[in-house]
């Protein structure tokens, strides 16, 4: 207690302490996020990585044996589902872009006072559950329903049958149904970032382009579209990444030949209780998506925009 005196050791003075405190502020601000990520992202990731190199069974438990062959086995056995997932997700993303871009453009530039109403309509589907929305598609596309009957009488089904995306007189339990479900469910994820980046474009740029004798199409090609690239990249990523791992659409709208990699992971994890294979598949999926996304961002040249 003798050490406690009324006079604090003066030399360092309050200024540096305050400065140091201020310097620490960013770290304090980061702390909740970092803790959250550590507990709910990093720790499960390490746990799954470990699981993927374990061998064993439910009864005997699983031990880390560095059994990397699981990865190779999983890949050779389930590559069709991997390729299918990427193909379905890419198709759905392209469809989302084709449907979403005009809509986002309209809302951003032409909607006027209807803008907010339209935005609410875009978000409205989120108010019901993902599962219910997908189940609704089973009714919409049911064999005897109006959609399938109309497609059949317009001979659209003949074309899709020839392309191999539908079978006979039905749409459900075919690739078309799964891709439609994915497109529908992820469309808002495409529209929202597109709208955000289109809305930020100064309308006077369009006038300037017009003054420089650019026709509307040229204006779009040279001004609007390049400026909306951050939205395009963000939208495609937000659509493609979750769509690749999705399993609800394939489960409800597809058949045995439309199962995606998410279905395999679910089945290995819950039914077969082969935790290492399920974990390995998850890591392969994650690595594949990371690789594709990296290439995509490099190619689209938007590192500094995103």
């Amino acid at each position, binding site marked *: 207690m003798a050490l406690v005196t009324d006079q604090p050791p003066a030399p360092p003075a309050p200024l540096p302490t305050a400065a140091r405190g201020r310097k620490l502020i960013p770290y304090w601000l980061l702390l909740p996020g970092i803790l959250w990520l550590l507990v709910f992202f990093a720790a499960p990731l390490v746990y799954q990585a470990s*699981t993927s190199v374990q061998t064993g069974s439910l009864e005997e*438990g699983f031990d880390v044996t560095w059994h990397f062959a699981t990865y190779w086995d999983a890949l050779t056995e389930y590559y069709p589902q991997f390729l299918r997932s990427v193909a379905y997700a890419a198709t759905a993303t392209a469809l989302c872009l084709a449907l979403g871009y005009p809509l986002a453009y309209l809302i951003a530039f032409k909607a006027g006072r209807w803008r907010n109403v339209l935005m609410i309509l875009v978000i409205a589907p989120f108010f019901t559950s993902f599962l219910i929305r997908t189940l609704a598609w089973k009714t919409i596309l049911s064999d005897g329903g109006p959609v399938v009957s109309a497609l059949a009488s317009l001979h659209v089904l003949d074309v899709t049958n020839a392309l191999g995306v539908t079978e006979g007189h039905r749409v459900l339990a075919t690739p078309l149904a799964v891709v439609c479900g994915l497109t529908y469910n992820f469309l808002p994820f495409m529209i929202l970032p597109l709208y955000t980046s289109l809305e930020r474009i100064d309308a006077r740029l369009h006038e300037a382009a017009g003054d420089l004798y650019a026709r509307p199409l040229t204006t779009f090609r040279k001004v609007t579209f390049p400026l909306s690239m951050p939205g395009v990249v963000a939208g495609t990523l937000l659509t493609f990444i979750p769509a690749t791992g999705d399993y609800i659409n394939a489960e409800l709208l597809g058949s045995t030949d439309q199962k995606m990699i998410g279905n395999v992971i679910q089945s290995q994890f819950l039914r077969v209780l082969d935790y290492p294979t399920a974990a390995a598949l998850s890591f392969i999926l994650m690595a594949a998506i990371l690789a594709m996304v990296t290439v995509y961002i490099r190619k689209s040249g938007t590192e500094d925009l995103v």
Partner: protein
Amino acid sequence: MERYQPRTTVNRRTLLRAGGAGALAAGALASLAGCGIQPAGRPDGALGASEDRSAHERTLAFSNWTEYIDIGSDGTSRPTLDDFRRSTGVEVTYTEDINDNVEFFGKVSKQLAAGQDIGRDLICVTDWMAGRMIRLGWARRLDAAHMPNAYANLAPGFRAPDWDPGRVHSYPWTGIPAVIAYNRKATGGRTVDSVSQLLDDPRLKGRVGLLSEMRDTAGLTLLDMGKRPEDVTAEEYDAAVTRLRRARDRGQIRRFTGNDYTGDLNKGDIAACIAWAGDLVQLQADNADIRYAIPDAGYMLSSDNLLVPRTARHQRNAERLIDYYYQPKIAARLAAAINYVSPVAGLRDELAKIDKRLADNSLIIPSEAMLAKAHAFRSLTAAEDKAFEAAFSELTGA
């Protein structure tokens, strides 16, 4: 001097960085190796007994499947449970949080393996899952002395499952026949009464539904091939899966489904399928075109079973509830509401008092002739279980 550092030299920063990365990698590897998953089973019961608080806590947490109990006319009350509270003073927290055996297992397995309370005193799972949990040592032994009604009234057909000889750990809540159902409108008025027809009839192509429950679909297929699911061998099982795979590859099968086949069958998207009898009573009430057939080769009869998890706090109260539902009067009220086969003997008179037609419905009270055709899948070892599920999983496309 400071500005003149060639990039290749090791300075303090690169050294720190390399050291940090190395430490991180080593730490990651160490933590990877340190994970492992504990054996799930503790048959020695080392973590078994948690104290029973039934004497001073008149409560019971009961987890069941959705739409598996009677509902009062107000749409929210559960009359049989209310009467149970009135007669025993035990307040039941009834939760409909079991939708799928494997999902539920995934949800509680970690805690049960570690001997932690899952907040449930009574759960209801299908026989093979009950068998697995009992095998892992996760279910309490029940005391028959506390359950005179249950002991006396358990129907003979449910008394001796091979996965729980003598019903030491479990009592059935319902029996679930898996039979063939079809939508007469979708089949053009024709009957469908065998698995062979489901798998081979070209007029049903692409409109056949099978259940994703391996034991029901494979079991019915085995019966159709003249094999007994009670003592299926690996070869016989493979043959059945091959038969199913051939039908799948021809495009005969539309989907492997859980409970969601009912909507498809009702609309006629699925013309014929393997179906659970309890669903059919409901479907037939809404749609006169829905018919069912008991295959000549036999059908699969499984059950959903009440288990007391080993970490339960209120076993005595759980036994009271089981015993309560084994009174024919109460069982009749339950059967009249959920339309599944009741495992309670001596039910017919009580059920007839509620609804004569239900008492005569062999999907609820099977006739002797129907009972003779019932089969059950034998219980599998852990290794067989994994191999069979893997083969079936491949069949369903995942």
